[in-house]
């Protein structure tokens, strides 16, 4: 760590490599204990490394290094955990079967003409309309629709799910 403050590249790099190995074990364990996806471990490791590097001047060489490292690591783990929980709350966890069933038309609505469907879809807000047209009407996969519309696949799935709910509400009132 002293090497990082004085500009000795090789020892500093060796320190960061050793640090990353320890962080990987600690963070994977912490994410597991918090019930979060351990596949995010490497992201959090990188965040801690960046924090240690960018704040290295705040370490007083007369004080022990470990408490300083622990404090920064803990801060970043808590921050990451909060962010991951927010992301998880927004994701819709459906199995592939459940996704497929959403694409199959409900028999009760098979009597509707294409113009009726188009009229209903046109009542949706712009982005949801685009997603429904791409996925349900034009038959693109969520991945293809995401590329075409410049959205993430997750956002396409969320928008599709919300559109169906909205269409059901509109169709029910009609």
């Amino acid at each position, binding site marked *: 760590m002293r090497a990082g403050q004085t*500009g000795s590249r090789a020892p*500093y*790099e060796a320190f960061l490599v050793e640090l*990353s190995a320890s962080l990987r074990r600690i963070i994977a364990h912490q994410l597991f204990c918090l019930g979060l996806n351990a596949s995010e471990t490497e992201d959090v490791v990188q965040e801690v490394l960046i924090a240690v590097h960018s704040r290295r001047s*705040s370490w007083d060489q007369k004080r022990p290094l470990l*408490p300083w490292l622990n*404090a920064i690591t803990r801060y970043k783990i808590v*921050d990451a955990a909060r962010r991951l929980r927010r992301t998880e709350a927004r994701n819709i966890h459906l199995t592939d079967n459940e996704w497929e069933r959403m694409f199959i038309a409900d028999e009760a609505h098979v009597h509707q003409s294409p113009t009726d469907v188009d009229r209903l879809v046109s009542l949706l807000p712009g982005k949801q309309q685009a997603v429904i047209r791409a996925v349900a009407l034009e038959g693109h996969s969520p991945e293809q629709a995401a590329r075409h519309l410049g959205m993430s696949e997750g956002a396409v799935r969320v928008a599709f799910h919300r559109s169906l709910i909205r269409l059901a509400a509109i169709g029910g009132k009609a």
Partner: protein
Amino acid sequence: MMKTPHNVERRQQTADLISRLAEKSGPQLKPLLDQTLVGATMLALVGAVATVFVITQPRTDLGLALTSWAMPFKASAMSLLIGGAFAMLRCSAMPGCAVRSASLLLPVVLLLGTGVAIEGPNAGIFGAHRFSILTCMGTIILASIVPLAIMLGALRRGVPTRLHASGAYAGILAGALGGLAYSITCINDSAAFVALWYVAAIAIVGAVGAIVAPKLIAW
């Protein structure tokens, strides 16, 4: 963690990141934490005094009060709390520094306790008039707003890793500065009054600091 192709790719990204960080090693401009905190505290005190003089005015018997024990007692209590809160705040801005709140707050607790023991716990606890409590707490809290903003701004020079705690210490420091400023105009000279209502107002400012800090000083 299993070594899937995805994980192998992510680890390579980490290795690349380490190389880039190592290239940028070297001295940084050290953030002047101590100088920033001292300067901010002095500026915050000026802000607190200015606010108090906007809201109210110095007591008419200020000269007499200065020669009695009451004003020095209030000023000493607030100064001890300022010193303790400053030390806690400074430590909270340095990762790995263990804050010893109990020992840092002990002097003010002892002073207030001694004052209450000498005077008696019920002496003047409700103040000189019926609006004393509201006036006291309200003025201290209002006088603490500018100091709280200044101290939270100063905290960004440090590396706070427990944001709620850092916010609370900033609030206690701001509240104590507000209390010190208010003591110039406060006509309630009872030790029990100071021990209860000044401390309650400072605790409220501390709680506000703890709540707002994560939104303002997260890094």
